[in-house]
């Protein structure tokens, strides 16, 4: 399994340097394992099909309770996982215990662990390393069977995007230790403790690798301690972190020396809709003072204010102080996972829903569907889909709308021979009844009594007409002809 890169890099390891940590290096090495997996993702445009499976190699390490900690991207969509120790030829079948795609972490269990954990010790999770200190990376880069150990310096700690989902942002540690494909999931050590997990790199610069810090690892381990992974919380509001204009401050009726971030909007139906309004200025979160750049001083670092929220689990209470109309107010928010109507994150281990009728394949509009356009998808996708992807959370005020439904494919048949141009259009209504979800659409079509089904689209004035008698007569043949296993993923 390759390290997830913003853009993949293949760099040679320039140096192999052994750490001088107090825990015996050899002992530490025994706890680092190679993970081999076969993964297979669904086809989001034709969800009854799977994409070709892929094999990959990554790294992981043993932690308490006979678990292996690794990156989610090593085992996401996995159909088969093998774990191997450097010291032995034996391969152990493993399974995913918990997976957190939003922070690219997973724990594995060995299916038949007899002998696996002999003479190994679980690695201890440490704290955030200090800037400019040395860290040591362990792993199996580029598929080599021998454990590689490289050293580097912690050069930056900041909030950044996790490329596994392409959207979630958490704290990352930047290091110049060589992190290459295969290193993913390997421990980054300092003073015999894990200070991070190697997980992604950059192609646009040399020797820049990223690791997941222990704040994120601990958040994950705490989350799963109740036997369920809930994920990071997300407050559904849009914030402007740039309150440097004195005029803007006066307009917001802020005291002379007040700093903070400005609320621009709240997401429809979010957990903070009743808590904040446009032009509120949030000055304090959980006791941390927010400056005009939206930063707080935390862990001895000046980091994005979201780091204060990251410390919490879903369901926790978070205290806010904010200014509204010149008054300093306080509120407490229960952390939820508010998500926009189009989830910006890539999904794993899911069976995407679909519904077919008359050869038209309807799916939910998702990032994964859009990524079917290939590497340049963000440039190549139809402009209206791009518009929705960028702006749906801002433009949607409809509390009933659960998801956008798009025609992902048209399986050619007499029923749809004149409708090719409606592919990739987003359905607005069926027979003038609003479509708020894929199931809504299926229900409206299945319950249609008219001779024709009239489908209208968002961002487009056109109407598509389906001859319902013809479609019903042809449905079974179309499914058979195109090897579609069933008419829908949910019972039709």
């Amino acid at each position, binding site marked *: 399994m390759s390290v997830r890169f913003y853009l993949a890099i293949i760099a040679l390891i320039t140096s192999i340097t052994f750490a001088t940590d107090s825990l015996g290096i050899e002992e530490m090495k025994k706890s680092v394992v190679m993970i081999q997996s076969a993964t297979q993702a669904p086809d989001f445009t034709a969800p009854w099909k799977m994409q070709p499976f892929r094999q990959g190699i990554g790294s992981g390490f043993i932690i308490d309770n006979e678990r292996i900690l690794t990156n989610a991207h090593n085992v996401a969509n996995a159909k088969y996982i093998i774990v191997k120790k450097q010291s032995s030829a034996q391969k152990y079948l493993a399974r995913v215990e918990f997976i957190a795609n939003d922070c690219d972490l997973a724990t594995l269990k060995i299916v038949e662990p007899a002998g696996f954990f002999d003479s190994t010790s679980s690695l201890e999770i440490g704290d955030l390393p200090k800037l400019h200190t040395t860290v040591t990376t362990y792993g199996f880069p580029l598929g080599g069977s021998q454990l590689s150990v490289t050293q580097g310096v912690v050069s930056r700690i900041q909030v950044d995007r996790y490329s596994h989902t392409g959207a979630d942002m958490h704290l990352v540690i930047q290091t110049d230790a060589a992190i290459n494909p295969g290193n993913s999931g390997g421990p980054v050590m300092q003073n015999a403790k894990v200070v991070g997990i190697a997980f992604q790199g950059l192609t646009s610069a040399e020797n820049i690798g990223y690791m997941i810090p222990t704040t994120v690892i601990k958040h994950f381990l705490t989350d799963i301690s109740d036997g369920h992974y809930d994920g990071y919380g997300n407050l559904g509001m849009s914030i402007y972190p740039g309150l440097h204009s004195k*005029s803007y401050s006066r307009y917001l009726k802020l005291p002379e020396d007040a700093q903070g971030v400005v609320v*621009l909007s709240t997401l429809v139906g979010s957990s903070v809709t009743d808590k904040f309004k446009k032009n509120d200025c949030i000055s304090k979160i959980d006791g941390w003072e927010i400056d005009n750049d939206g930063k707080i001083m935390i862990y001895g670092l000046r980091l994005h204010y979201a780091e204060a929220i990251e410390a919490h689990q879903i369901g926790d209470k978070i205290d806010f102080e904010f200014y509204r109309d010149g008054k300093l107010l306080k509120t407490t928010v229960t952390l939820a996972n508010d998500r926009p109507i189009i989830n910006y994150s890539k999904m794993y281990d899911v069976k995407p829903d679909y519904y077919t009728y008359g050869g038209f394949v309807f799916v939910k509009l998702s990032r994964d569907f859009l990524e079917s356009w290939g590497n340049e998808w963000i440039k190549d996708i139809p402009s209206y889909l791009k518009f929705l992807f960028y702006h749906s959370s801002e433009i949607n005020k409809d509390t009933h709308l659960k998801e956008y439904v798009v025609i992902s494919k048209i399986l050619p048949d007499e029923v749809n021979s004149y409708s090719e141009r409606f592919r990739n259009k987003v359905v607005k209504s069926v027979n003038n009844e609003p479509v708020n979800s894929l199931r809504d659409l299926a229900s409206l079509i299945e319950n249609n009594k008219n001779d024709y089904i009239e489908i209208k689209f968002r961002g487009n004035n056109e109407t598509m007409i389906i001859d319902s008698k013809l479609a019903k007569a042809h449905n079974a043949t179309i499914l058979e002809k195109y090897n579609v296993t069933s008419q829908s993923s949910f019972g039709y």
Partner: protein
Amino acid sequence: MKRILQTLLITIISIPISVAAQGFPKKDEVKDSLAYITVYSQAYNQYMPWKKKNVVRNTYYGCAVSSSQILTTAEALIDSTFIKIKLNSSNEYLSAKIKSLDYSLNLALLEIDKGQDYKPLTPVVFGDYKEGAQLRSYWLNSRSEVITGRGYMDRALVSKSSCSHTRNLTYVVANASQETGWGEIFYDQDKAVGIASWFDGDSKESGVIPAETIKIFLEESKKESYHGFGMIGFKAEKLIDPARRRFLSLPDDETNGVYISSLRNIGTGAEELKVNDCIVAIDNHTINAYGKFKHPLYGELNYEYLITSKPIGEKINFEIYRNGKKQSLEVECKNFKVEDMLVPYYQRSKQPKFIIRGGFVFEQLTRPYLKLWGSDWRGSVSPYLLDIYKRLSFKPTPERKEVIILSQVIPDDINVGYQQLAGLVVSKINNKNIGSMDDVFDALNGDSIDGFDIVEFELDYPTIVIDRAKAAIADMNISQRYRIPQMQNR
């Protein structure tokens, strides 16, 4: 000998050269009908509308339509600042001005400035279309030599010119021996059939603005004011889907017609037609399911010709099915200026409207602005602006005649905290809805809110708060520091 006698006769009695001629005119016979046109042009910089781009020099060709008037393409004269003409009869450049110009037809009429000494031009006589006819092209080069080329009349179609959104009649000359597309004149024997407006190097085809179009343009140009020709106010789609035909309740024996899929807010039919109307005939010409009608001369042509070749104000009869019932509609032929569009497709020979206040640059959203994002602008530009452009360009309303954007922020102390904002659509200024640049001028020059100008945007962007007193001083500094000669152009 016969040819010489004819030529002499023509010269002596001073009638247009080709009237009595047989075969293609000789070079000598057309030299006094041709012009070599040099156009200097300078467009405005869309990103910094107070600036002009570098002066560009281009050359085009023209033909005489009177003793002092020259016909060429409108495209040639976009952003023109100075036009000079060279004739065969004179070594000196002559200056000329635009008499009339129609971007939809891609035609322009130049008038040589009075008081200059030159031999009066011999006007060209235009003839008719003949499919398959051998053609010859003529133009005057920079050394006042007549150059010729060959080709044949392949077909007539209705297509867009490079400087307009309307589709007009175009002749396609195939197997063109020379690259023509800059106003060269094409002859079919002794009659001119049109002037060249484009060339496709791959197919060796040249597009020709037809004599028919030239004639109606010249007629219109004689009027006191030029009103132009019709423009489409709706979008029609082919109607070949049996399910849709039945859905629209068309009779089974009706096999013709196109249906209206959407309406514009401007142009012919925008008010009279409705979505799902099925147009089966225009002015008694039956429109087939692909939107074509049979023209007696040109064969099958797109229905748009029946509107875009019609002078505005005339009545056009539409035969339609509406809710399954056949009816006649009398529709007034209308057009609109590019400035009437919500997002104008072109910004020709005009300075973009702008105002700078506190370093914030407000501009009108236009297609040339969007094209600042380069050749792949549709993939690179803000999806929100692209969506407005794609869906609403032809849908201005009385409340929203223009889309106003904050195009950029010129850095200064007064706008610190806002300097990264760009390409945002302005919704309100000082609580007044903004639907045009005039609204911006009025709001910024009207009452402030407690000394502040408050600018709000569509989507989730911060409110801009400008201290009006400080902005006046800041703008003076910005003007000097960034060398901006004008801070607004109202």
